[in-house]
């Protein structure tokens, strides 16, 4: 399989065509084709991963035992690839196009990052395919939906296995197209098509950077090939200036695709699409394309932003700002999907920041765990709207769903805890990896940002869980648990949200994730792999827990006058918080009046305002401005000046012609006179010339 990995994207691509042409005639309207294709792709992806792991382990044992992670405990710093032997990526390609003597290939590349992505993408896509049979049941365009899902999976997998940057860009744009199609799935309504347009145009704006960056890298390294590019960026003769420009340009691409501040505004709007799509595309896979790109050509950024040197750089700053901005915004949303969307923005900020502080492994690991728990959360939200609120995502219409929807509730809780980063769930391990690297690699400020972000995450997720599952049902329907097509994927994802993190759990001496997936053929040698730090981990967990407690208590308290009394007794954390607050009543006022009102009010609303008016305003203004500039250019310049000149010339010619036409009187004898006179003039001219 390592040599023929190109088959994996081909399967969904074929399935796309089959669904498109024959889907409507199938008994399940094409869903069965999609599921079968993704199932096959998932199996093949697993086989590929197995073979890759075998290959890595063989290389490791040949080197004489796993030297990878056995360095001394404590705060010692181990350089990345010193212990492990380098396992060469498997690259296969054929000529795609040529120019002059150069031939450009299209090909498949298998290395650690690729097999990890292959498994994640095929697995989540498969689960979403299954989930959608129930969720999208009797949709207006069920078959089209499945076709688009297949096309998306094919494009995403195609992008993942790219052997070169140009191919990556092709996949990148194709997933953008699928995102456009699926956000605008219900295009009859204007807001949906607006959201689709916004998503496409915003990412496309970032793609200007992507295109420019790839071009710069191409001319610097002389190739699109990822191995060549990485090797060039790490070689001593690298042109630092070009790499810097390339990194800045590529960074814009990442900001567009991965919803980084200030190009993130499309992501919450993208929730207009069907929920499974939000889970698959706008949480687990497509939006991490930017992070994937960053990890793919990491040496370029390493060199361009001088990440090895510590301090501030664009990548870390953008990521850090995004964490806070996204998390703050998640507070003020009433729409459960919007909460999750802003949470995604914030988590993507973690990954980008991780890349910026040199935590390659942390970024990729967080990408891996985030895919599971965020998909779990989104699918849970979908389950609620499907079975409880009749396609509404407004949390004010939810509440008290814990009882009627136990599976959804427990999986959602697992997802939340994983997202909040509480030991020993998946999010804890990956977030810890990032924070520890930031700490040990001289990026203290980003460690602080990361901790604040973690606290905020815990808080808004508590609010979200509370509003959804606790209290009293405020909707007007009959909530019931969803069908197995929905709950089974939820359970699988919840289980993964627990265990996925254990792949890289330092206290247990497990570093499999690093061992298997860090082998990508060319990472900076100076990269830091942090040692597990109990103190930091403890701080991070307790911070999250405390915030959960406070937030839960606060929310509970506020709803006290409702019939929520019994709740605080059942929930230990909430109960503790409740007691604490009950005793100090004025503190409650202080808390509500100052901290929450501060965060929820001016800060969040300010962020929201900046988001809606300044950033979005600029986006809209640019759009409106270009339309206006276009109208001006057209009305004034094109129609009056440019066209006016043309018309004037025409009119002058016509006038001149009108004058001349008087000469043509129709009188033969006058013509003859002109003739003779002209002959006379010519004779005179000839005479003068000859004599003179």
């Amino acid at each position, binding site marked *: 399989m390592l040599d023929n990995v190109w088959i994996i994207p081909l399967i969904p691509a074929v399935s796309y065509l089959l669904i498109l042409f024959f889907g409507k005639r199938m008994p399940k309207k094409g869903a069965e084709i999609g599921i079968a294709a993704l199932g096959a792709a998932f199996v093949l992806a697993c086989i590929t991963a197995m073979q890759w792991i075998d290959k890595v382990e063989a290389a490791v044992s040949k080197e004489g035992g796993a030297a990878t992670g056995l360095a001394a405990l404590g705060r010692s710093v181990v350089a990345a690839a010193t212990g492990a032997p380098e396992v060469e990526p498997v690259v296969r390609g054929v000529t795609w196009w040529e120019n002059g003597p150069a031939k450009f290939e299209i090909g498949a590349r298998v290395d650690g990052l690729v097999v990890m992505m292959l498994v994640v993408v095929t697995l989540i896509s498969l689960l979403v395919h299954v989930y959608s049979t129930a969720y999208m049941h009797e949709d207006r365009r069920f078959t089209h939906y499945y076709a688009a899902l297949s096309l998306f999976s094919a494009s995403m997998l195609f992008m993942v296995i790219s052997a070169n940057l140009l191919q990556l860009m092709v996949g990148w744009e194709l997933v953008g197209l699928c995102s456009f199609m699926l956000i605008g799935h219900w295009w009859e309504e204007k807001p949906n098509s607006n959201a689709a347009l916004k998503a496409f145009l915003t990412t496309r704006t970032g793609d200007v950077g992507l295109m420019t960056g790839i071009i710069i890298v191409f001319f610097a390294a002389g190739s699109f090939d990822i191995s060549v590019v990485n090797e060039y960026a790490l070689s001593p003769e690298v042109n630092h200036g070009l790499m810097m420009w390339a990194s800045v340009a590529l960074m814009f691409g990442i900001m567009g695709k991965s919803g980084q501040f200030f190009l993130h505004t499309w992501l919450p709007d993208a929730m207009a699409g069907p929920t499974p799509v939000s889970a698959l595309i706008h949480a687990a896979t497509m939006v991490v394309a930017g992070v994937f790109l960053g990890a793919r050509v990491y040496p370029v950024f390493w060199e361009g932003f001088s990440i090895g040197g510590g301090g501030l750089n664009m990548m870390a700053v953008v990521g850090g700002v995004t964490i806070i901005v996204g998390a703050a915004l998640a507070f003020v949303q009433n729409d459960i999907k919007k909460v999750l969307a802003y949470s995604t923005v914030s988590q993507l900020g973690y990954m980008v920041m991780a890349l910026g502080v040199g935590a390659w492994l942390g970024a990729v690991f967080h990408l891996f765990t985030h895919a599971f728990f965020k998909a779990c959360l989104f699918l849970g939200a979908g389950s609620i709207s499907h079975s409880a609120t009749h396609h509404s995502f407004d949390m004010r219409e939810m509440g008290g769903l814990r009882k009627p929807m136990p599976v959804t509730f427990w999986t959602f809780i697992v997802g939340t805890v994983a997202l909040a980063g509480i030991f020993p769930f998946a999010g804890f391990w990956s977030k810890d990896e990032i924070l520890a690297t930031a700490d040990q690699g001289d990026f203290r400020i980003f460690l602080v940002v990361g901790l604040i972000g973690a606290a905020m995450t815990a808080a808004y997720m508590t609010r979200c869980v509370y509003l959804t599952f606790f209290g009293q049902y405020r909707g007007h329907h009959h909530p019931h648990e969803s069908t197995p097509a929905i709950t089974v994927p939820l359970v699988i994802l919840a289980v993964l949200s627990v265990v996925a993190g254990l792949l890289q759990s330092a206290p247990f001496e497990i570093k499999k994730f690093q061992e298997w997936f860090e082998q990508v053929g060319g990472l900076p040698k100076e990269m830091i792999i942090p040692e597990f730090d109990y103190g930091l981990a403890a701080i991070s967990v307790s911070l999250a827990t405390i915030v959960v407690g406070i937030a839960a208590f606060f929310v509970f308290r506020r709803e006290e006058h409702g019939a929520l009394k019994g709740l605080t007794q059942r929930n230990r954390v909430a109960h503790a918080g409740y007691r604490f607050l009950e005793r100090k009543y004025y503190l409650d006022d202080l808390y509500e009046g100052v901290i929450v009102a501060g965060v929820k009010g001016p800060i969040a609303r300010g962020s929201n305002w900046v988001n809606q008016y300044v950033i979005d305003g600029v986006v809209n203004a640019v759009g409106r401005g270009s339309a206006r500039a276009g109208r001006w250019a057209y009305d004034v310049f094109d129609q009056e000046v440019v066209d006016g000149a043309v018309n004037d010339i025409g009119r002058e010619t016509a006038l001149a012609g009108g004058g001349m036409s008087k000469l043509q*009187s129709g009188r*033969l*004898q006058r013509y003859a006179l002109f003739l003779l006179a002209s002959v006379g003039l010519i004779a005179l001219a000839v005479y003068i010339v000859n004599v003179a």
Partner: protein
Amino acid sequence: MPINYFLILSAFLFCAGAYGVLARRNSVLVLMSVELMLNAVNINLIAFSAQAQDVAGQVFALFVITIAAAEVGIGLAIVLLIYRNLRSPDLDRVEQLKG
């Protein structure tokens, strides 16, 4: 005989013809005036041909006579048509040609 005599004769004929073409209204007379001009040219051709001892001029004169015959044929046909359409040979009334 000096060649000047011929040239003066031909110049006189040409001018008479030109005057006729420009000044007469009757289309038949205009046509005749054109003939006059052509023959003035013929005289020139023959005179120079004789002087230069070259038959080319006489050949050209023959051509001109032939063409003139054809031209008179067509010209008279046009005059006839003008007369038929306008009931008058007056050239000033043929104004539809203007642009």
